[in-house]
Structures are given as structure tokens and as C-alpha cells.
């Protein structure tokens, strides 16, 4: 009864489109009728009635195949302008019976799910390529099914939308190229290990002046000591125009993230520093620029 109520409530939300097979059914019905009319064969009448009844009962079956599906967007991950990524949509089947041959559509992109089991859900990854950076709204997705007889194509809008940010397309010169063109970009990274007696070979900068005051000459030792680049990206020097600059900065940010290297971006009115600010926050600011 509950299912019937749901069926009645949701029935109008389902759009039905005829397919070529619905024309085949019509031709078949007409042909069978002529055959039955001319020859009065009850076998033909029986076949005719079966074709009619099956086509007729396919209607409610195909509708109930769709209406118990509830969709929602799940976390998308990073999306970059002009780069193919995927939109993840969770489709939950709220009926106890499985839904068959469901296609998730958005514009020309589609994902097919042959079966969504009863009382369970699947995550469909829909290919998605934003054409420009910035905030985007993903909407207009719909579920389609030709189940059971392919005589009708049924669609139902998923009814939810998703607002996300497409980061600028990461492109431009590599971080290695940036570093090689810079002078004095290295800083030092040290990890204090202890003190040892000065023997004249150590760097003067490593002398522990507190020990000198006590009458000893000790030097500091470090378990790790290496030179690290000081990465400061200037917005205006990053490219010829704003889009090129944002793309270049995005690329460097991603490379720095991969190398776990801290960086600073000098934006026109703001300075963005990593790791003080989260990479995604920095990328979002670049996207919204």
C-alpha cells in the first residue's frame, strides 16, 4: 500500500518518451489484429492480447523501476577547469526489489548501472569537465531507464544540485624550471642533535656561543642539515595575463604540495602562505580571483 501511494505520488515526475520499439509494438498489434481478423485464429488473438498486455504492464513496471531511487551528490574531490574529472552521485534504492538498467545522465555524459539492489546504494561517477574556473553548479542530472521492454524511455530528474569550485587549469612552467631561474632561493633546514668539541674544521656559524662564555668551545651538530628552496611566487611574474598566472600558480601549488615544500604567493592585495593556509583554501582563492 505504501509502495502504491509512493507510485501515485511520484508517477507524474516521470517523463516517458516513445522509442522505436514502441512503434514495433504498434505495428505488431496491427499486424496480429489483421491476421486474427482475416483468419479468426484464436491463437493469434491470444498472441495479440499477450503483446498488448505485456506492453501495457511494462508501463507501471518501468515507472516503479525508477521512482524508488533517491540520489545525492557525494564529495567530489578537486575539480579543475578544462580537465576531465568525475562527479560522484550516490543512488539509493529505497525499494526492497532491485532496479535494473539505470542510466545516470548529465548532458551528453552518462553512466550505466545494470542493477541497484534493493535497500542498497551505489555510487556513480559521472564524467565532468568544467569549462571555466570558479564556482559552478552541477544540476540537471536525471536517471533514465528503458527497462523492461525498451518500448519507452523513462526519465526522472534527480532533483538535487551541487555547488562546487573548479580550480584553474594547472599549466605553465614546472616548479623545477622556476627554481633554476631563481638566485638565492635556498634556505636551510636543520634538526638539532647535540654539542661536540670544536676542532677547527666546523663552520663558525655552528659555534655554540653559550659554551664559549663558560670557557669551552663547542659546536652544534645537526642530525639533518640541508638546503631548501625559499619558494616565493609573485602573481604578476607568473604569467602574461590573469588566467595564465592563475594556471601557473595552481600548477606550482600542486607541485609544492606533492613535494611538501612550503611556499608563499604574493597576490595583488594578499599574501598566501603555506602551510599556514590549507592548500584547498589557497586553490579556492585562486579559482575565485
Amino acid at each position: 500500500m505504501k509502495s502504491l501511494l509512493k507510485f501515485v505520488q511520484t508517477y507524474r515526475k516521470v517523463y516517458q518518451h516513445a522509442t522505436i520499439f514502441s512503434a514495433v509494438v504498434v505495428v505488431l498489434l496491427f499486424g496480429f489484429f489483421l491476421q486474427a481478423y482475416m483468419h479468426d485464429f484464436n491463437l493469434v488473438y491470444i498472441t495479440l492480447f499477450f503483446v498488448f498486455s505485456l506492453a501495457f504492464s511494462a508501463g507501471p513496471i518501468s515507472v516503479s523501476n525508477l521512482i524508488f531511487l533517491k540520489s545525492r551528490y557525494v564529495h567530489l574531490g578537486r575539480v579543475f577547469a578544462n580537465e576531465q574529472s568525475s562527479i560522484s552521485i550516490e543512488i539509493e534504492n529505497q525499494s526492497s526489489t532491485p532496479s535494473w538498467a539505470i542510466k545516470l545522465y548529465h548532458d551528453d555524459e552518462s553512466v550505466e548501472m545494470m542493477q541497484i539492489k534493493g535497500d542498497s546504494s551505489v555510487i556513480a561517477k559521472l564524467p565532468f569537465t568544467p569549462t571555466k574556473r570558479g564556482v559552478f553548479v552541477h544540476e540537471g542530472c536525471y536517471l533514465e531507464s528503458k527497462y523492461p521492454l525498451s518500448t519507452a524511455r523513462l526519465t526522472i530528474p534527480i532533483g538535487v544540485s551541487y555547488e562546487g569550485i573548479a580550480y584553474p587549469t594547472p599549466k605553465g612552467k614546472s616548479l623545477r624550471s622556476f627554481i633554476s631561474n631563481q638566485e638565492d632561493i635556498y634556505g636551510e633546514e636543520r634538526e638539532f642533535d647535540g654539542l661536540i668539541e670544536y676542532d677547527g674544521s666546523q663552520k663558525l656559524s655552528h659555534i655554540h656561543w653559550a659554551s664559549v662564555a663558560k670557557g669551552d668551545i663547542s659546536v652544534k651538530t645537526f642530525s639533518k642539515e640541508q638546503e631548501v628552496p625559499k619558494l616565493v611566487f609573485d602573481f604578476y611574474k607568473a604569467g602574461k595575463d590573469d588566467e595564465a598566472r592563475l594556471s601557473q600558480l595552481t600548477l606550482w601549488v600542486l607541485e609544492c604540495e606533492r613535494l611538501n615544500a612550503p611556499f608563499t604567493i604574493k597576490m595583488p592585495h594578499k599574501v598566501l602562505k603555506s602551510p599556514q593556509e590549507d592548500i584547498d583554501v589557497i586553490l579556492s582563492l585562486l579559482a575565485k580571483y
Partner: protein
Amino acid sequence: MLSLASLQNIRPTPLQLLDISYIIVLLPLLLILKVPMLIFAFIALALIKIHKNPAKPIVIMGVFILGVFALFLSQYGAFSFQGLSRLKLFLELLVYILVIVVSMQRLTRVVNFYLLISPILLLALSLFFFHGMMMLIYVIFEIFFLLWMILSHRMGSNLVDSFRASMVMFMYSLPWVVVLFIFFPRISFEHPNYGFRGEVVRHTGHDGTMFLDNKSLLVPSNRIVMEVGFEDAVPPIGTLYFRGSILYIDKKDHWEPLPSYIKRDNQYYYSNQEPKISYKVTLYPTNKKWLYLLDMPSFAVKKASLDKDLISQVKKNIDEPIYYQATSSLSDHYTTQLDRYIYKVTTQFDTNSNRKAYKEAIKIKNSTNDSEKRAKAIIKLFQEQNLTYSLKIGSLDLNNSTDSFLFKQKYGYCVHFASSFVTMARMVGIPSRVVTGYKSDRSNSINNYLPVREKDAHAWAELYIKGAWRRYEATSTASIIEADENTDTNQTQTAKNQEKLNLYLMYIKYKVETWILYYSNIRQLQLLKYAKENPQFVLFFILSILVLVLATFVIISYFRRPICGDVALCTIQPLLKHLKKIGYKRERDETLHQYLQRYAEDNPNNKYILEIDRYYEKIYYGEDKSKESVQALKRVVREAINAKD
């Protein structure tokens, strides 16, 4: 062996599904394929089996040439433009072409639109060729099977899932089919003939004339002419002659009744010493005026005439079913006066025709003066000719049909036997005439119920001997004729049981044929009339439909139920449904253990939940699938559901 479990692992490809569908729809059509076409079909099948990749164009061309050659050989002799007007031949040709085209397309391994719809076309074509009870069962199976294959393709699932889905769909449609079958108006030609108009095919059946020519093929029709219900058992076979019309005048290629201006006196009662039997007849529309009464009728039927020849007629053509009660005496003769005109007509024959028969007749005539002995001599002459009973006859010389049939062709059916017998009887000087009507077969009856079909149409001779018209069964002189006497006394008990079973099967078949295969607008009107007269029938009918709907829903529920893959999950399903029903939903990403724990915390009174959790863990993860553990889990699940939360 193909088990259910193995079906669960089978996911046929679209091509495999199509192949299976073609095999199913082609099976009945194999019975009509001629040998060359059969050979072609098997070669095509072998090629399809061999080629795992798309066949080369030269192979496809070879198949085409082979197919055309097989078609030519199959239709050789039958093929002509005149032949094409015959629907059966035309349809056969269509089947052949379809088989060739489908084989070619299948070899390309490309599933196109035409390949997809061809199984249904072949199914439709097979309906032209077969319309018996077996085909009825097979057609329903075919429809279900094709549905199964379509759904398998659409769902991309295993065969068990698609079977369950197709069963659900089939059951949804079943009540509609039943209702449509009963009520859909049967608007059709009044006399359904096999084939298009103008076709030279003639059905069996009685229409008041009797042609001897072989211009047309005689097609035995199973259409029921009348149903006879006897008060007692069905009389023996040798007595089941239903009189239709009397033919007096030999027109060489056919026999005719007396001219319409010759009126035969009517009578309403005919006295006879033989025992009488009563019976009820339902006569279906014939568009003729004759009522068929069992030889020899005793009374005129109400609102119908009975003339001196014991022929019964109504005033208007019968265009709707009529019901009448009749009484007859099972006799092969009746006494009557022979007037001069009838004597003249019934002794007339053409002296210039049938010279050989005439020569034999003179010999018989000269051998004895006794009419009965002369008749016996004619029977003996017929028996000596080794005649064969056959519906397919050669071309008779219509100017000398008796000579041609008796001494040259030597095979024919009842009309040739009766016509020749009457001609010879006239030649030996016995007044004689042809009687046409129906001779029924008792083997088609059950209890006191006898259906008479068009194929039971018959012609026999009546000779006027010793003041009475006496029936002579000329067809019985054929050397090859089926024995029709019952041999109950010699039968073993098993044989008797088999016969009894057979009779019941026939009775069921008869009922199915009457109410399904030959269901017509007449039956619809009968039902309506009966419903008008018996309002309780309407209630009964509605209840029957409701029971059918209920039964289909039970089957649908059975096939829609989710399948549990694990015994532990199956066992706790009722509890999960119960919890869902009372609004306690399982959260996303929540394990069953967490779900049950949460419920137990929220409902501490329900002590069974934690026990269920333990048992579930034990069976599912501990793999303790012993009967005791499962039974224990079932018990606690039941108690948990019944417990007040």
C-alpha cells in the same frame, strides 16, 4: 544437468540470447520446412557455430547463393504465379526468405534492428500454419521465453534474475489477457477460410451440393458444426448419420437436389418400430436452412419442416446458433411410397457415359431380379476394385466419372464412392439417390457428448428396395479404410485405462478447443445471454477473475521477494523488515552489528536483540551453519519481533 545454481552464473551475450530465441521460434517451423531448406538451415547453423568472428563477405555471399538454391529446390514444382496467390505457399516462401536473411545477418555477428525483431515475425508466421492445442501451449511458452530473453538482454543479469522478472511481468499481464480474450469483440469473416479470397481451396463441410472434380484441394476443417448431447450414451458409430440434403440429379461434375419448384410434402411424425433416442443439438451458423437430424428422424423439430425425404429445414438461413431437441430411431431404412416423378428421377442415368460400369451393371442386372442381391453385387464389384479412400484425388474424367473412379483412378473420398454407387444402382434398375450430411466419429465423444465437425461431412447412398429407402455405406467398400468398430471385449485393463484417460484428455482438449481455440462471437453472445438469465453467474465470473488476480499476485510476490545469499541474513530478514517498518532505519555505512547494538541500547527491554547479534556473528563469521544454530536464531528472531519494545 542445467541446475538453478548454474543458471545463476550464466550471463548470455546478446548474440547468444538471439540464437536461443531463434531456435525456440524456429522449432515448429522446422515441421513445414522442405528437406533442402532444412539442410540449408543446418549448414547455416554449423557456419554460425564455427565462425567466432564476423564472416567474410564471400562466406555470406555463399550462404545467400546456397539459400536461394535451397529455396528453389524446396519450392520446385509448387512455385508458379498462380501458386503464389495461395496464402500458404506465399507464407512458406516468406519463412524461407526470412531464414536465409537471418542466417546471413547472423554471420556478420552484428545485432541490428531486423535481427532483433525477426523472432517475433517468425512466431507470427508460425501461427498461420498451426492452430491446434499443442501450438496453443507452445505459443504461450514462446511468448514467455521471448520475454525472458528480452529481459535478459535489457537487464544484463544472470538467467535466474531475468526469469524472475519475466515471471512477474507475465503474471501481471495474465489477467488482462484473460479478460481481453473473453470480451474482445470477435469481428471477423463469417466463414473463416484458410487463405485469401479467390483461393482455390475448399473446406470439408456440408453445403447441399457435391462436386466430384479435383480443381481444389480439400482441407479437413476441425471447426465444430454442432454439438450433440444425448440423453443416454452416444450411439454406436455405424448409426451416427446426420441427414443434411438429398441429391437426385447427376450433373456429371456435381450432384444436385430436386429443382426448387418440386415441392416435397411435409410430415410431422414418422412411425418406426425401431427404438427411439432423444438428443439436444446446438447448431452453429451455417448460412443454410438444413437442420441435421440423426437417421432416421421421428418427429419434426419445433419451427422446422420435415419432408418426405426426412430432410428438415427452417425458413430462414441459420445465421446464429440454434438449439433444438430431436428424436430419431437408429435405423438404416424407412418405408415410404415412391411416386412416379421420384421414380423417374432416381432411375435416370446417361447411357452414353460410363460404358464400362454400364457393361458391369448389365451383367449384374441379368444375373438376378432381386434388388437386394443386385445391390450386394455392386458392393462386391466395388470391393474387387481395391479402392482407396483419400482426400487427395487425381484428375477424374468427369464425363465418365464412375468409370474413371472405379476402374482407373481407384481412389477418392465419400462423394466419389457415393456417386459411383448410386450411378451403378441406377444402371441395374434400383431407384437410388445420394444423401449428404455428417457422419460422426464416436471416438471424439465423451460421456454423452458428441461434437460434430466440418471434417465429418459425408455422403452416402440410399437405394429404394422393397418399399423402403435403405442406407448403403459405399465408402466402406474401400480397401484401405480405418476400422471404426470398438473392440472393448478384447482390451486389457491397461488398454481400457489408457482409453479412458485418452477420452478425458480428449474431453479437456475439446473443452480447450471449444472455449479457447474456437471461441468466437457466438460463444461471447452465449455467455452474455447466460449471464442475463443467471445473475449469479455474473457474481461467479467476477469472483473467478478476482481469484485469478489474487493467484497472479501471490505468484508475483513469490518471484519479487529478494533472494538472500546467506542463511544468517535470510533468517534475520524478518527482523530487519520489522525494524524498518517501525521506523528504526539502519544508518548509512552502519554495520549490522552496530545497528543491532544501537537498537539494543535504545530499547533495553528487548533482550533478544543482543542474542540475535551473537547468533548472527556465530553463524555468519564463525561459519557455524549447523541446523541447531539456525533454528535458535530463527526462534530468537521470532521472539524479538513479538516482544514489546
